């Protein structure tokens, strides 16, 4: 009877699994489970560009001298206060007393010096090394004071110190932060089940206000259907940025959940190779701009309204000007401009698309809109590494669609060799002037000029801002609805 017994063993296993005691899934009120789409490759924000690293670690495990609040304003963090001397290049930071790393190491000026010198060193693998290159010298007159001298006035230096790339790490643990992060933040690392979840616990020795939650778990779910199912089943209490926009109406109808559509710093553009004919012709670029019906594109991608842009700037910033009317949707005018440029019958080109669904979806619509004015754009889907190699590095492209998610990154248009290949000395001078202007009001005026310049030159097709689709359990309060920086500060969450 062995055969029968084997069969029974198999059936018994299934029955056993089905009858296991149901473990209570009810949320205790001091823990939270938050889903996000991408998993961080490592847990060290100073050694990789992945946004997912910042989303889980910044302001939770790691902290910088300053931080950005939910409105995008710079706030004190590990630096209690700071003064900028009249020379505009000397920053004097007064450091927080009593702050400690999770392993008990006291936080002092030495670690600030170490962190920034490490970021700018020759063998640094910091993804935003340019934030630190303005630094001329770092001195530590006493353990609670850091003085940073810059080579030249750099208006956004302080803002950069709020980024994940500028968090303060300790010399003893810097190398192992990738897998076992040790910071000064309100939450400390507990466990990382790669591919599934990251568990954090409240840091009871935190220098600041004690967080309401004792435990937090990040779950990583890339499949849009899995995200929706987990939210509806109550497996997770929130999703920081849902990748299934088509599920928004369904989730909005669920009384247990709250859905908000917020803004980010992700300017989504129809990147255009400005050095390659016929795109080097302003009239051709203007024709493309007139052909892009932004509202239709955004609706087609998301199914609801998202902020539209007419230049490379996020509406979250106070210096934003609405330039969507610079070249309004007008296919007839677009055709006329093409004819003036010498292409009465249009032309053929390629549209290379990276994997994110916003790019693939808007790519289809953009190609259809361009076809209306005679431009036949052949879609070429690329994996991200190939996109980086061919489009971004080798500039082997005509058109592409990508969101530039770094905050305040209008300066990329002034960079030599950047893949848009926009060469405009006037714009470069403007960006240089912005960097030297420390007065907010004057700088914002210059930012407005820069936005107008890019819009008029139709450098790229400016489409829309990536929305942040936040879904939270209706009883959970404090989740950020906008992303001036992509972070999810757990210390601000509490259960009602």
């Amino acid at each position, binding site marked *: 009877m062995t055969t029968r017994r084997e069969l029974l063993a198999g059936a018994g296993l299934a029955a056993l699994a089905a009858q296991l005691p149901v473990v209570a899934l009810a949320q205790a009120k001091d823990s939270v489970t938050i889903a996000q789409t991408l998993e961080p490759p490592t847990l060290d924000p100073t050694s990789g560009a992945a946004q997912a690293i910042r989303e889980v670690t910044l302001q939770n495990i790691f902290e910088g001298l300053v931080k950005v609040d939910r409105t995008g304003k710079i706030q004190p963090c590990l630096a209690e206060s700071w003064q900028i001397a009249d020379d505009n290049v000397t920053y004097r930071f007064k450091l927080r007393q009593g702050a400690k790393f999770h392993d008990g190491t006291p936080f002092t000026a030495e670690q600030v010096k170490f962190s920034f010198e490490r970021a700018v060193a020759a063998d640094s693998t910091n*993804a935003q090394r340019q934030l630190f290159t303005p630094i001329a010298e770092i001195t530590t007159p006493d353990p609670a004071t850091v003085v940073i001298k810059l080579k030249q006035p750099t208006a956004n230096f302080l803002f950069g110190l709020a980024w994940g790339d500028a968090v303060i790490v300790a010399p003893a643990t810097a190398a192992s932060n990738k897998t076992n992060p040790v910071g000064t933040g309100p939450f400390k690392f507990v466990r990382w089940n790669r591919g599934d979840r990251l568990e954090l616990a409240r840091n009871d020795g935190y220098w600041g206000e004690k967080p309401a939650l004792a435990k937090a778990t990040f779950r*990583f779910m890339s499949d849009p259907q899995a995200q929706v199912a987990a939210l509806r089943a109550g497996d997770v209490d929130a999703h920081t940025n849902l990748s299934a926009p088509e599920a928004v109406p369904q989730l909005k109808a669920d009384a247990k959940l709250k859905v908000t559509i917020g803004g980010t710093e992700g300017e989504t553009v129809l990147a255009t190779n400005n050095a390659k004919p016929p795109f080097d012709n302003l009239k051709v670029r203007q024709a493309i701009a007139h052909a892009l019906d932004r509202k239709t594109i955004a609706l087609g991608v998301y199914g609801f309204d998202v902020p539209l842009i007419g230049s490379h700037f996020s509406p979250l910033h106070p210096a934003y000007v609405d330039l969507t009317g610079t070249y309004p949707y007008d296919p007839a005018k677009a055709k006329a401009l093409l004819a003036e440029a010498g292409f009465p019958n249009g032309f053929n080109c390629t549209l290379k698309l990276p994997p994110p669904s916003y790019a693939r979806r808007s790519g289809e619509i953009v190609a259809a809109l361009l076809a209306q004015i005679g431009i036949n754009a052949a879609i070429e889907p690329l994996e991200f590494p190939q996109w980086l190699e061919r489009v971004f590095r080798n500039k082997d492209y005509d058109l592409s669609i990508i969101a530039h998610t770094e905050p305040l990154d209008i300066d990329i248009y002034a960079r030599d060799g950047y893949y848009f290949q926009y060469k405009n000395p006037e714009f470069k001078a403007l960006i240089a002037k912005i960097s030297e202007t420390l007065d907010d009001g004057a700088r914002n005026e210059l930012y407005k000029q820069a936005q107008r310049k890019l819009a008029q030159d139709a450098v790229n097709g400016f489409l829309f801002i990536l929305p942040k689709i936040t879904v939270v359990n209706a009883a959970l309060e404090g989740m950020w609805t906008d992303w001036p920086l992509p972070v999810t500060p757990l210390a601000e969450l509490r259960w009602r």
Partner: protein
Amino acid sequence: MIGYILRRLAALGLTLLAAAVVIFVVLEILPGDPAAVTLGLNAAPEALAALRAEMGLDKPAVLRFLLWLGGLATGDLGQSYTYRVPVLQLIAERMAVTLPLALMAIALATAIGIPLGMLAASRHGRLTDAGVMAFAQAGLAIPNFWFGLLLVLVFAVGLGWLPAGGFPGWQAGIGVSLKALLMPALALALPQAAIIARVTRSSMLDTLQEDFVRTARAKGLSEGTTMRRHALRNALIPVVTILGLQFSVLIAGAIIIENVFALPGLGRLVFQAIAQHDLIVVKDLVMLFAGLAILINFAVELLYGLIDPRLRQS
């Protein structure tokens, strides 16, 4: 026999080497720089160079190939470009999900498929038979990821009995872990169960025609005992063969199912490694799968040699 084994072993070594060359060359041709993927759009050239050196990508291709081969031979699979931990550790972590998932799926498929096949054979030509065959047809036709989504809708979203996806980790307890694997295993098992039911049914029908079955009936055994004791044992041989063949299909299915259920298994690892250009992980995993297939083939050839002496000569 010894000569035969030696010849086969030499062939095995050459096949593995050829597989390694093909895998390395194909991934080498693939455009894209792992360092650029890690450091993103703002990366400084110096930072990229430093990271490439850290990843060992600054060495010439031939040297990297030899280092990789040497590593494979000594059990050092290198460091993941993305996760920056040893690949061996990654594979071990993921194996702890994929292996139980595959075993559970096979157990479920057998537990469902064999009784159904027996039932259909014993009611040959009747309504029950037609019903089982309809189930088998549906099981083969329904894509397992879609069936998985249906299961989630019913048991996770609707009834709330099971988690919609994810894996708490074995340290969280065997009960919750098995619960997390139940729906994905069921989704994986459905097409397997359908195939097993069909094979069991036809194999059983053949066996029931045999003389020894008639003898068993003639000596007065009940129909049930005849089926279980005499017919099933003989009918199972083709079923076991099919189970072995289906194992690779199961692994391929696991890649999709692990993504639907957000399970951190080998399938998801290889999927993510390709997307993130973590080429060392892709190389090692493809080599692992290829090596397994080659080794199984080798074992089968040895068995043939044992069975058929003529094969040892050639």
